[in-house]
Each structure stands twice: as C-alpha cells, then as structure tokens.
C-alpha cells in the first residue's frame, strides 16, 4: 500500500467508539423533556406562501405556536377560524378520544383483535382535515382517524371495519383501523409503513399532469421517516414540484424506540426537507389553531402550484403504541404528564373558555352528547356482529377483489372451500 499518503493524516491512536443514541429517561427515571426547546407562542414569523425556501430554513428548527399558556391565540399564525369552527374542531377531537376509549375497551372485551389509539395527537389530523377541500386526497397512517371524523365519515362504518362484521366496508380482510374511503379523501391504509408516502406524491403528480386543482397530503410517523420510501417521496416531490403536503407526525416514539434513533443528528425531522429545497415547517401539534394555520399555508402552496411543503407536527403519543403494547417497559410511567406541549383537547377547550365561547358546563354536556353518539354507533355496529360473534363477512370474500375478475385458479380454489 505504498501510495497511501502517510505522515499527513497519522493513524489515530484512539480507538473508535460506537455511538447509540439514548432517550433522556427510561422507566424508573424522572421524565426529562429539557431537550425539547419550545419557543414562545406567536414568536415565529409567517412568511408569504411563495417565499423562497432558502429564506425560511430556520422554520425547520423552531416550533410554530399560536395558543399561549393562558389559552390566548397570539402572533402572525393566528388563523381565520370562527368560534363555531373551533367548537366543531373541539367536538371532533372529543369524538375521536371517546371513540378511541370505546374501541380500546371493545378490544379488551374480545370484540376485535387489535386497536390503535390517538390519545394526545387528536389535533393533528382533526385540524389538518379542515384545511383541505373536497376532492383532495390523504394518504394516512393508522393514526389519523381524525381525518375521517372531521370529515363526518360515519362512526358506525369505522366500527364495522374494526369489528370485521357483516357490514365491514373492507369485508373482513383488513386489520382493525385500516380504513379506506375514497369518497372522504382517505386512501386505503397500508400495514406497511411509509409505502403510501410516495404514492401520495404520485397522486399529486397525476393531479398536476391532468391540470386538476386537487392536491394530496402524505402522512408518516417520526420512526417511519427512516424508511426508504420517505426518501423516494422527497426526491419525486422535489423534482416534479408535486402539489402535496408531506406531513411528519413526530409523537416522540415508534413503538419502544425513541425518536432519536430515526432522527439521528439532525435535530428535527423537518430538517430532512432542507436537503431537497422543500420548505419545512415545525408546528406545535397539540395546538389546534397552529396545526390548522400551518396546514392551510402548506395546502395553499400546493394549490397554487408552488410545490411540496414538509410539516413536522411536534406531539406526544400519550397512550400505548397499540393494544399489543405496554409502554411502561420502555419509558417512565408518567412521562406523558410532563410533556411540555400539554393536551390538545384541554388547550383548545381553555382557549374557547378564555374567549368566552365555551364553558365547563357546555364541555360536560358535549362530552355526554358525544359519548351517547358513540355508544349509539357502537350498539348499531355490534348489531352487525363483532369479530368472534354475530354477522361475519363471507368466506367468498377471501377470493373477491384479488383481481377485478375472478381468474380460473381462484375459481377452483373457491370451489374447494365450497363457497
């Protein structure tokens, strides 16, 4: 190896060390969120939507916030939402939380195999949906049922899917919570992480190819940004300036794995957009008003053919990953209480009370109404069956929809099963 230029870069005498990032605290330790730097509400500037991405790189390292500690909406990002809009938003979030509670319980009762909650993250999908127009298409993960609820998708159809009963729109084929509704701008959820992110970009490209006006929204979790399809999505979105909003829901955890494992040395997930010249914003995901404001900004950019925007929602997965998971094995039990951005429902409720549009009483009343609505839907759904009892999708449904038409080999197989 005579050609190695020796003398110049002397062989290190220090051995290398392997570095594995660690979360700030583990079970038994005090929760510690001191690394989450939280700017004051109202302190981040709001650029025009046609800003040069180069000029707003700092937005990828900050957090856009609207609601302050007192529940007041402050700063340039205060959105144009009426009190009525906000009350409706609060009700969407309350519905989602109530729905989660009931379905979580239904799973424990053996009425279905599996469930995934949204606790603590309700604002993200509920507020985002409001920024869209009819015809726009979401490519969601399993933790954005708020997109359906805020679009008035029937609760009972969601439950029918969860129960895999005879009215299940997915005919028993899909795991619970893997909804699909083209009509409601909600793409079929894939159990495979990140795959739909790049599909959203393709859908948006198609809309541009057809000189349509509809836009797409892609969804992904913090952990899943490590998947390769995230990269493909950013490459294609950047190259073809696709009319798509690229959402990253950073709820701090990916099952047992803290966000530092996916994020590495970049500080934030929004920063990933910078390498592609894609404007990247970080927003307080537990602030309904801020989420809506940023969503609306990004949606407008897409609609005006200005290309993609990457949005990181800073939030916290307050519950378990799914009904198969117990977070007390990997994070401090009450970590969620210490989450510095609070609870999105409580924060919006406080804001509405602060502006005189809501009261503890009306809130209690709304809670009761919503619970009644959810329970009624649940009763109706259960009348069509649950996973292990009552009405069921047919065994015939195993063979349908593999192709548009049943091919001979599937016909033979269906005959074998005698259906």
């Amino acid at each position, binding site marked *: 190896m005579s050609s190695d230029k020796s003398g110049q870069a002397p062989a290190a005498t220090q051995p290398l060390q392997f570095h594995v990032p660690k979360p700030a605290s583990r079970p038994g330790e005090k929760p510690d969120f001191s690394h989450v730097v939280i700017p004051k509400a109202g302190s981040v500037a709001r650029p025009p939507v046609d800003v040069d991405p180069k000029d707003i790189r700092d937005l990828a390292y900050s957090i856009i916030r609207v609601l302050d500690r007192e529940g007041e909406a402050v700063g340039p990002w205060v959105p144009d939402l009426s009190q009525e809009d906000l009350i409706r938003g609060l009700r969407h979030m309350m519905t989602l939380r109530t729905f989660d509670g009931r379905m979580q319980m239904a799973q424990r009762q053996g009425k279905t195999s599996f469930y995934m909650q949204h606790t603590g993250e309700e604002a993200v999908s509920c507020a985002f949906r409001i920024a869209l127009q009819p015809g726009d*298409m979401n*490519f969601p993960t399993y933790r954005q049922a708020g997109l359906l609820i805020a679009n008035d998708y029937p609760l009972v159809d969601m439950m029918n899917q969860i129960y895999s009963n005879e009215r299940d*729109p*997915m*005919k028993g*084929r*899909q795991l619970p919570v*893997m909804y*699909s*509704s*083209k009509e409601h701008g909600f*793409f*079929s959820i*894939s159990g*495979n992480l990140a*795959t*739909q992110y*790049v*599909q*959203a*970009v*393709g*859908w*948006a*490209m*198609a*809309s541009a*190819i*057809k000189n349509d006006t509809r836009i*797409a929204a892609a969804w992904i979790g913090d952990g899943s940004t490590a998947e*390769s*399809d995230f*990269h*493909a*999505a950013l*490459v*294609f979105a950047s*190259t073809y300036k696709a009319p798509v909003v690229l959402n990253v829901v950073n709820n701090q955890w990916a099952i047992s794995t803290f966000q530092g494992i996916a994020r590495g040395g970049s500080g934030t997930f929004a920063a990933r957009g910078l390498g592609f010249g894609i404007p990247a914003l970080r927003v307080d995901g537990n602030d309904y008003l801020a989420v809506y404001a940023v969503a609306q900004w990004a949606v407008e950019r897409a609609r005006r053919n200005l290309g993609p925007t990457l949005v990181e929602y800073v939030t916290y997965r307050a519950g378990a990953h799914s009904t198969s998971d117990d977070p007390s094995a990997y994070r401090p039990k009450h970590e969620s209480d210490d989450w510095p951005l609070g609870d999105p429902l409580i924060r919006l409720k406080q804001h509405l009370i602060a502006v005189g549009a809501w009261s503890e009483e009306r809130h209690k009343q709304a809670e009761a109404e919503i619970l009644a609505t959810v329970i009624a839907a649940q009763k109706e759904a259960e009348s069509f069956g649950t996973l292990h009892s009552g009405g069921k999708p047919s065994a015939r449904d195993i063979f349908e*929809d*593999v*192709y*548009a038409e049943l*091919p*001979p*080999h599937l016909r033979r197989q269906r005959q074998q099963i005698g259906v």
Partner: protein
Amino acid sequence: MARMTMIEAIRSAMDVSMGRDDDVVVFGEDVGFFGGVFRCTHGLQQKYGVSRCFDAPISEAGIVGTAIGMASYGLKPCVEIQFADYMYPAYDQIVSEAARLRYRSAGDFTCPMVIRMPTGGGIFGGQTHSQSPEALFTHVSGLKTIVPSNPYDAKGLLIAAIEDPDPVIFLEPKRLYNGPFDGHHDRPVTAWSKHELAEVPEGHYTVPLGKAVTRREGSAVTILAYGTMVHVALAAAEDTGIDAEVIDLRTLVPLDLEAIVASVQKTGRCIVLHEATLTSGFGGELAALVQEHCFYHLEAPVMRVTGWDTPYPHAQEWDYFPGPARLGQALRDIMEAR
C-alpha cells in the same frame, strides 16, 4: 402491415395506447428525452409531451410508488424498470401495494398499471443484466405476469395489459428485442424482418391475457416455454427430430391450464423450460400442476430444463443458458424414459 422488431412493437403498443387514452402515462429511467436504453419509448415524449412521457430519478421504488399513486388517482401508468435485475428496490411497492390495493380496500381503490422490464440473458450482461425473476411475481396474488415471445404478441399483450384494470408485470426477453433467438449462439444472428410473427398491425389490437398458444403441434412430448425459450424449444424439436408440441404460455398468471393439460394428456410427456434458476422457479409450479392434472396420462416424470441455481455468470454465459443442446438431451432422455 409492417414488419416490426420487438422494440418497435412494444413502442407501437405504448404509442397506440397513449393516442387512444390521455390517462396513459409512461416514465422511467432514461425513458423521456432519450427514449430508453433499449429505445422502447423513443419518440413518445416528442409526440405526447413531457407530461405524458418523462425521465424519472433512479429510484425504482419511487417509479413504482408514484405510479401506484397515479393509478389510484385514475391514470394508467406504464412504467419501465431499466433491467428486471433492478426491480428489487421496487419489490415492496409491487408486492405490498400494487398487488393488494384492490383487495385491501375492497375495490375502493384500484391499481391499473403496467411495469415493463427487460429480462433474460444472452447479451453477456452478467449477473445484473440477465435475470429472469418471473417466479418472484407469479407467487404474488394480485399480479398478472406476462412474457411475450415475438413482436405480434408483444404489442397485443402490452395493449391488453395497459387496458387491464389490475397491475400487470410485463417481462421483455431482451435477447429477442432485435431478432428471434433459438440459443444457437454460434450461428449468425437473425432479424425479425424475416419472421412471420413480426407482421404487426400499425393500429390497435389486443392479444388476450391468460391464453397460451401452440407454436408447434406434436405428439411425442409437450414443451412448456415462454419468451426466448419458445424459440429454443422449436430449435430443439428441429435439431432432435423429436415430434414435440411447443406451447408458448405467454401469460404465466393467470395461467392457461386447460391448454397445458390438453397437450400433455395427448403427448404423455412434458418438459418445462425456463432461463431462471431451477429451485422454486416457475417451472416447479408448472411441473406440479402437470403431474397433478395429468398424472394418469404421464409416461415419464415431468422434466425441467432451466438455468442453474447460481447467479448468471458473465464469461460462462453459454454454459448457463439452457440452450437447444441441453433441451435436446432432455428430449432424448424423456423419450427413453420407462
């Protein structure tokens, strides 16, 4: 009616489809301005504009992933993977997404798209420009898999694939692009212009998916083949003088089992031929089906003549390729069986 090469026929299929249907879009690596490294998309960008035919980043996952999004929107993408050997980065999107979208959404979303890719050896492409991965698609429910053996079929099948409501894998034996090839690599190259199956109508027509065709009638033994191997089978029948019936499967899934069974029940013997590696190749499925459906007619075990269970070597290409000599030996062996 013009004589076309396989490349011209494939190009014509896309041209005709794009002309008839604005929703057909074509993209892939080097596919736009340049027209593809095998020139299959040459001229399409000029004719239909950059929104209908364009260059893609080198990301097979991105190409197929965005195509799925487009298909779910309502377009009919026909994308090119530069070599089948490079489809693996897209395999997740193909298997987990394209193939299952209709099923998992109960028809709410569908995925009408075609993924074209050149396959097979014979051009000294080494291990990464020679593969025949058809078995990796035939195992995946929700996909249709096609391998044409001549210009006429290539065009008709490709148009049918583009018009199909489901995702179709369209495998193009690259050794056939410019001429039929029977595996006699030491003989002069022949051109499609001399071949009757290069008579290709300029306009629209389809060859239905799921239908095999008999290329040579025979009574002694049935050879099941597709793509380049159809020509090898015909050559071996000629070379050996054994009266083989040669069936060109054309579509692997859905398979024309009826045609296969009818032939083998007639001949009583069957050889399966493919270029892909033996173990778990599509030949295993074919042999299994044949013995299942023709057991009482078989006079000898179904034989398989295939590539070896190794990567495709560069210099030893002709020791790897299952050519007419190897098939000829198998034909003689199977006729002597019992």
